[in-house]
């Protein structure tokens, strides 16, 4: 795994990551090299992850003059008329996206894995992976065109669904699904490749034993492969959850592109942004960030424990 877990997960992942460094009978030189490798990341994580987070904690509990404010910032943002709608928006989006992600990623990975033709399998993996190779914001920009019936390559489909204009497509009720589709399109390909790799890790002996016992492809998938993928799915869930609660780029770009028809306070992160830069209230913004962090940590904990992510065989 070369993925650096988001700083939010530092706490959750800390115990796991520290483990390999422990000198369990290894040559001391290797340990030192390990520290060297990890030091650069640690420094950057400290400067751009931990310190800002701590600063946010300080801001969240103080007022503009730097005095202790108790929970005032939190009650203020929770009482904001935009707060609960934003929570609802992000939750709806998360549910659609996470369910879609798990179902389709696992499904597609099983499908690709069962393709016997080598070139077809490689080609499919490449195609799935391709959208993710586009830089983040630019892939969202691409979607601005896809969603506009006058410019879209799938305008026939959009019109068939009864959407004649861009504004009709981006009605508030459609947004969670739209964001979920965009996020899936940009991010799922990489996960499919990872799941494929995980499927490759399942020993062929186990699969063959199942087949000898008379299991067909579906039974093998459901009874053998899925349970053995559990940790990987949980891992995907944790990573995606953290990313999903921080929904920002899609609504922000769509808001600017639609001249604010998509509200600029759609998600919680956008609301924090509004607090910091429209209302010049960094303390309120920090309070929202902190609430997000706590919620993301709690949900991650559920995934970690339920998914058995850190259980040893």
């Amino acid at each position, binding site marked *: 795994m070369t993925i650096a877990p988001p700083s939010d997960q530092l706490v959750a992942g800390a115990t796991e990551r520290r483990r390999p460094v422990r000198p369990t009978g290894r040559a001391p030189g290797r340990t030192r090299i390990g520290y060297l490798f990890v030091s650069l990341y640690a420094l950057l994580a400290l400067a*751009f992850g931990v310190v800002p987070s701590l600063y946010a904690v300080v801001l969240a509990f103080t007022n503009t003059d730097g005095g202790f404010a108790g929970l005032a910032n939190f009650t203020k943002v929770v009482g904001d008329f935009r707060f609960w709608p934003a929570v609802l928006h992000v939750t709806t989006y998360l549910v659609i996206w996470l369910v879609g992600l798990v179902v389709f990623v696992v499904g597609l990975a099983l499908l690709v894995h069962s393709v016997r033709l080598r070139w077809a399998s490689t080609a499919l993996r490449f195609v799935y992976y391709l959208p993710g190779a586009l830089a*983040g914001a630019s892939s969202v920009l691409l979607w601005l065109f896809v969603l506009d019936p006058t410019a879209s390559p799938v305008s026939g489909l959009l019109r068939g669904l009864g959407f004649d204009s861009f504004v009709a497509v981006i009605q508030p009720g459609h947004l969670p699904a739209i964001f979920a589709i965009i996020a899936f399109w*940009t*991010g799922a390909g990489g996960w499919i*490749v990872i799941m494929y790799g995980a499927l490759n890790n399942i020993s062929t002996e186990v699969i063959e034993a199942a087949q000898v016992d008379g299991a067909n492809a579906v039974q093998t998938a459901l009874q053998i492969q899925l349970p053995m993928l559990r940790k990987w799915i949980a891992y995907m869930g944790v*990573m995606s959850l953290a990313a999903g609660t921080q929904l920002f780029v899609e609504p922000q770009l769509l808001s600017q592109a639609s*001249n*604010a*028809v998509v509200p600029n306070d759609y998600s919680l992160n956008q609301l924090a942004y509004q607090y910091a830069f429209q*209302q010049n209230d960094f303390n309120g913004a920090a309070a929202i960030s902190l609430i997000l962090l706590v919620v993301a940590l709690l949900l991650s904990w559920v995934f970690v424990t339920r998914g058995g992510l850190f259980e040893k065989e």
Partner: protein
Amino acid sequence: MVGINRAIQLRRRSAAAVAGVFAATALLALAGCGSSTSSASGSYGFPEAKQETSSTITVWVDADRQAAAKAFQKANPDTKIQVVAYDGSANGSNSFRTKMQLFDRAGSGWPDVVFSTQNNDAAWASQKSGGKEAFAGMLDKGLVPGDTLAKFTAGSLNPCTVDGHVYCLRNDLAQAVLWYNKKLLDQFGYAVPTTWEEYQALGEKVAKQHPGYIIGTAGDAWTPEVFFWASKCQANGVTGPKAVTVKTDTNECKRAASMLDTLRGNGTVPVVSVFTPEFVKKYSGKVLMMPGPAWYAGAIFNNPQSLNVPAGQLGIAAPLPWKGEDKPVTGNVGGGTWFISSHSKNLAAAAKFVEFVTTADDYQVNVAPGYPAYAPAAEKWVAKQESSKYFATSLEPVVTAASQIWDGWGYGTFSQEAIWAKTVTTAVTGGKSIVELLPTWQQAIENQAKVNGYTVN
């Protein structure tokens, strides 16, 4: 792997951005502690920094206003300026305010002069923010000569005026007028309407006799500024730096709303933004008339990328009054503003720059695309436009409209356009009528005003 990293980064960047900003501000705050600008009480009505008369001034402009900086450099080669291009705070980016707040936290770094495409910047820039000195320097206490200020078109400095003091100079005006296609109108045998009632009646006639042709649009965020402002609907009655009166249940609001509902219904005022490919595709050659700001001429009608109306067809009529009202009023859609930083170390040069770009013929008449706010420049600008023979009628109505902007609609820190877009435009597209949405609109404005620290009456 890269894909997932990316996907995560995509969303993380937001958090990282916020976190990064915190970090940056923390560092800047630390760095800023040592270099606090010594401020003595100044002679222009605000505490000014220690002046260095030959220092270079930093000027922030948007892409279009780089020509202004260039014109200044040509005319004043001795004044050293450093030009920084930014987005002009356009399209709701709010970058002007965002950046200044970060400089406020850092305690240094402010540019000397800033151009903004928005009208609601004086509302915050004139106010102390978190105990820090207001960004905008007061201009009417001697920094800009009184007789220069007096020559700006009447009412044009309203967006710059807070508590009776002027905090910015207007670059151009964006008064709404009634644009029409004289050739089409003559061909169909219609007269130019003289009241909003006649305008509505014309729309109903067009719908029956020439379906497909339109007499306006209601899909842009500035729809309230064109129709509701001109109807004296008090949706944005900013009465003080932190007070706003919102009343959308008045007859003035209802008449505009019901007119728009009727015309939306028969297709003559579609809910389409003029800046969409859809608009150009569907309505090129089919715009019979369109109430809209002065800048529609260059941005839409005389623009090869948009409607591309040939020379000799576009006519201009004065803003329409409602029946029984003696005097027509009109709305305003933007029009840029120039600010001088109160933190500037070279106020003289900054003032010289701002005066030049707003008043000098070298820029406002010869180069600028928009209607100048400075009246003497506007006169010459109009003469130049008329000599181009593009317009089918005299430009007189634009000049008249410039001083007819209704002063009951103010300029607060929050965006009325954003509120309209997210509450009314979406609901109308979803099938509701504007009349029934008036209370929702009111509630949305009140909510937004309150979270921005306004008291609502």
